[in-house]
């Protein structure tokens, strides 16, 4: 990717442009986000990309859940409980729909809330970074599935690592999208907002009654 920075990366190269972007996302998240946002991907491309990521995430999430449940269970879990848990795993299609809905909500939140903070990012950029982060999550999940099959203890460590990295990437992407100087203030804003919304929803949910979640 370094030998010809003027090309957009669509031509065959040593490294696939998406893989190059994934690498840069880890080594230089803000630079990667800037590259992605500056492509100004048109809405049809974003919709297609979102649909693709959602469908693949649905399949992968379903596999992941089933694989987790196929691991040797701790002795205190009865066979009946395990069977019930298996029955509750959502199918790939419904997981894909949840994923798609989640992406819409996250992109809208990144865009609208960022604007409230005085950010300058545009909706297309917010959608693009949301899809890209979902795609990276998907890749991480596939790695985790493989690890889970080969070496479960390492998979657990990798999962924790990914959660931390994921939050860091989200923070950096948002900071770059909205041209915020400090990624830390973005981080605390995300934390505070998530806390507030979760608390509000928990209180409201308790009003609805215990069966709401079941």
């Amino acid at each position, binding site marked *: 990717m370094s030998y010809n920075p003027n090309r957009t990366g669509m031509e065959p190269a040593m490294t696939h442009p998406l893989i190059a972007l994934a690498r840069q996302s880890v080594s230089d998240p803000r630079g990667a986000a800037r590259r992605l946002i500056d492509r100004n991907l048109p809405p049809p491309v974003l919709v297609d990309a979102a649909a693709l990521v959602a469908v693949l995430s649905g399949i992968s999430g379903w596999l992941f859940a089933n694989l987790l449940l196929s691991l040797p269970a701790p002795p205190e879990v009865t066979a009946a409980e395990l069977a019930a848990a298996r029955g509750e795993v959502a199918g790939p299609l419904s997981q894909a729909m949840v994923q798609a809905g989640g992406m819409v909500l996250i992109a809208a939140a990144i865009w609208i809330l960022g604007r409230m903070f005085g950010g300058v990012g545009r909706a297309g950029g917010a959608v693009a970074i949301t899809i890209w982060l979902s795609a990276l999550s998907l890749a991480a999940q596939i790695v985790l599935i493989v690890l889970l099959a080969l070496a479960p203890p390492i998979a657990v460590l990798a999962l924790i690592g990914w959660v931390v990295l994921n939050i860091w990437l989200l923070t950096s992407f948002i900071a770059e999208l909205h041209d915020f100087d400090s990624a830390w203030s973005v981080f605390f804003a995300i934390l505070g907002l998530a806390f507030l919304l979760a608390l509000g929803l928990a*209180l409201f949910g308790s009003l609805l*009654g215990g069966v709401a979640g079941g």
Partner: protein
Amino acid sequence: MSVSRDIAATWLGPRRVYDRLLARPADEGRVLAWLMGGLGLTFVARLPELSRQAYLSGGEPPLVGLVAGTLLGTLIFAPLLFYLLAGLGWLGARLFGRPVSGWAARAVLFWAVLAAAPAILMHGLVAGFIGPGPALSVVAAVAGAAFLLFWFVGLRVAGADAGTQAA
């Protein structure tokens, strides 16, 4: 406009309703009435489900016990928690650089509860007569999303009002 028409109007255009509600003079009694009205309806909405629960479990715990517990929870404890939540909303708006008055923070939260009441009632009906399932999940999601959206829009409107007054 009457409260019931304002509730319906909130579902169509929360911003306009909040503009109107917040333009009236601050009155703690009125917003408390909104909250208690919303929670009262919530309590009523829970009854079919409690009846179902008592029936399915063969009356153990008895229906009266369930109703008493729910009454205590929704009308005594929940209001206190909503006052706390309003305080956190006030703090959040301040951190976002859109400070709102304490009364406005309470007004928009309590109105969000009351305005979400139709969805809460619907949820109660589904929980009581259909029971757990996809229909209940959808109604719960709609109710939760409506409540969060109304609360959030209200805080925004209140914050914007405060901004224009200061300017």
